[in-house]
């Protein structure tokens, strides 16, 4: 009950009549499907960070090896086991070429570039190795970025092959269904029963390790996951009416698969590929560690880490940089893929 005094104006109670339009709720501004996804993606800080780092690393992988005068295989034995030294940061006390060595008498600080005793010259006062050198006198900076190149290259090729082959396999299997599907699925199921690791290891042993072999092995084993996702999506879409509509209009099966279904599952495929990259890099790194990596003097992140492991306790700097790059690459791709997945499929309601 409203007890306030309210002054009514004289024409308040006049009927407005049929001159006003009935209110129709303004719809929320409808964004297109892709814009929506883009918006969600850009809100995810982790995903953006991941993307930025990937671009950064890719950039470095391209120009990194050319930034110094060394190549990835040039060895200067007299320069072996040097700690990192960066001209710009020297004065601050870090990256000044010194490292702490643990000896039987305790820890002492050693600097192979500049001797503590001003009378002694090492001949290295003007040389700078940003990431230091390894046991054969090779510049770790160059090798790290060359290694990144190779690791990324391997992963990318493997993923592309996976996507093309796995996607097609899953699409065909799911679309045709029936016998075809059953056979194809049995086959991939059996193949899946063999742990990837085992298969890759065996392949490499038989074919002799090398860049191509590793890529091939990775490609051969990674397509199954992709084909599963593709098939699941096809099965979901197959029954929908727009497919039926297409059929009644006379579309051939091939047309339907690639022009109607594919665009709709694209999102899922991208996500899966983004997840496959770190997987491939990880497997490659693992192989390197076990001794099946790329042959010397070529380097991949994995083989760098594997080599540096031996000097882990004496010269930790050798292993830190490749590890950091590796970790960053894997983290970034995972964040990116996570972000993409959330952007494409926001299940979380506001609770």
């Amino acid at each position, binding site marked *: 009950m409203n007890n306030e005094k309210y002054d009514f104006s004289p024409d308040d109670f006049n009927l407005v009549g049929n001159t006003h339009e009935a209110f129709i709720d303004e719809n929320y501004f409808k964004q297109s499907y892709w814009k929506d996804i883009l918006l969600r993606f850009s809100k995810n800080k*982790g995903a953006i960070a991941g993307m930025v780092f990937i671009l950064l690393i890719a950039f470095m992988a391209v120009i990194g090896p050319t930034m110094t005068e060394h190549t990835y295989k040039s060895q200067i034995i007299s320069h072996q086991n040097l700690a990192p030294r960066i001209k710009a940061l020297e004065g601050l006390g870090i990256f000044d070429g010194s490292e702490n060595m643990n000896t039987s008498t305790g820890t002492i600080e050693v600097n192979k570039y500049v001797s503590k005793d001003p009378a002694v010259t090492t001949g290295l006062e003007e040389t700078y190795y940003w990431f230091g050198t390894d046991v054969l006198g090779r510049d770790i900076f160059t090798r790290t970025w060359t290694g990144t190149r190779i690791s990324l290259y391997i992963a990318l090729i493997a993923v592309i092959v996976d996507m093309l082959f796995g996607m097609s396999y899953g699409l065909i299997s799911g679309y045709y269904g029936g016998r075809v599907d059953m056979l194809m699925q*049995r086959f991939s*199921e*059996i193949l899946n*029963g*063999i*742990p*990837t*690791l*085992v298969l890759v*290891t*065996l392949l490499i*042993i*038989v074919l*002799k390790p090398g860049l191509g072999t590793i890529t091939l092995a990775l490609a051969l084993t990674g397509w199954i996951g992709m084909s599963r996702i593709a098939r699941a999506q096809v099965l979901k879409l197959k029954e929908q009416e727009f497919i039926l509509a297409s059929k009644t209009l006379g579309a051939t099966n091939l047309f339907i698969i690639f022009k109607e279904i594919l665009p709709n599952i694209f999102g899922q495929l991208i996500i899966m590929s983004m997840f496959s990259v*770190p997987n491939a890099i*990880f*497997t490659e*790194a*693992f192989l390197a*560690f*076990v*001794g*099946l990596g790329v042959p010397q003097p070529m380097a991949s992140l994995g083989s760098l*880490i594997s080599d540096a*492991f031996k000097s*882990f*306790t004496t010269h*930790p700097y050798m*292993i830190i940089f490749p*590890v950091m790059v*590796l*970790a960053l690459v*894997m*983290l970034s*791709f*995972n*964040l990116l893929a*996570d972000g993409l997945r959330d952007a494409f499929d926001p*299940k*979380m*309601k506001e*609770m």
Partner: protein
Amino acid sequence: MRKYIFKRIGISALTLLVILFILFIMLELMPGSPFNDEKLTDAQRAIINIKYGLDKPVLIRFFNYLKAMITGDFGVSYTISKNTPISTLLQSRLPLSLRIGGQAVFIGTIIGIILGLIAAIKHNTIFDTITTVISVIGVSLPSYVFAMALIYTLGFKLKWFPLLYQAAEPINSTILPTIALSMFTIATVARFTRTEMLEVLGTDYMLLAESKGINNFHLIFKHALRNALIPIITVLAPLVVGLMTGSLVIEKLFSIPGIGSLMVTAIQSNDYNVIITLAFIYSAMFIGIMLVVDILYGIIDPRIRLAKGDQHE
């Protein structure tokens, strides 16, 4: 239900057979196997051929090979430990690897579930973010990175745990490797638990349970967890794979005399018999776990276990 189980067993057996065949082919193709050794004269080779039945047709050789593998006659090692039957090598090593692997799975799963639960309950708070960060890191970094970090900090600098495995201290010296190995498990399980839990918490039946007046503790542990955790079994497959790969590296790093380090040594010294045997063992374990998972899933989920049988208004 029974049909389902039989079907799964059938496929597993078939898969194992195919794997054995592939392994067999590989064995034949192995370059530098002792029987391809150029140093042998033709006469010597002829003798070896007859002795090992290498002149018989492929299928019979395969059958013999099958028989041998199934009965545990894995042949002998050539380079690691000359002429030692592989089964002897396995005897001491297999239980150790299984133990450490088991520890890692057990601890990893429990911690993972706890983390995932906290993340889901404290959704969108700082806890959630932390857990997500841990999960992503745990999944992204190879286990040997963790291992190295652990070795350096806890082992080397702080000297809390021994750096290498010692049989005399079976528990203490396996702590670091277990932690390193379990990171992947923790990350995967946490992520998964969080997702499933969030989905369950948003369902109608949770709202109904809430309206019944049940307190938070019971709501989560009696109602939500059951539903959220059933699908966790599906995560076991990638977990096992992760453990297998991880164990090779971890065992090497910590000098644990298990089958993982054996595999690495075999690869590095081209001991093909051992490699093939271990490949078989890993495959068999993997297939076995998948089979168990498939069957378990059918049993635990009442929607699958009890058919829709009796429904009438």
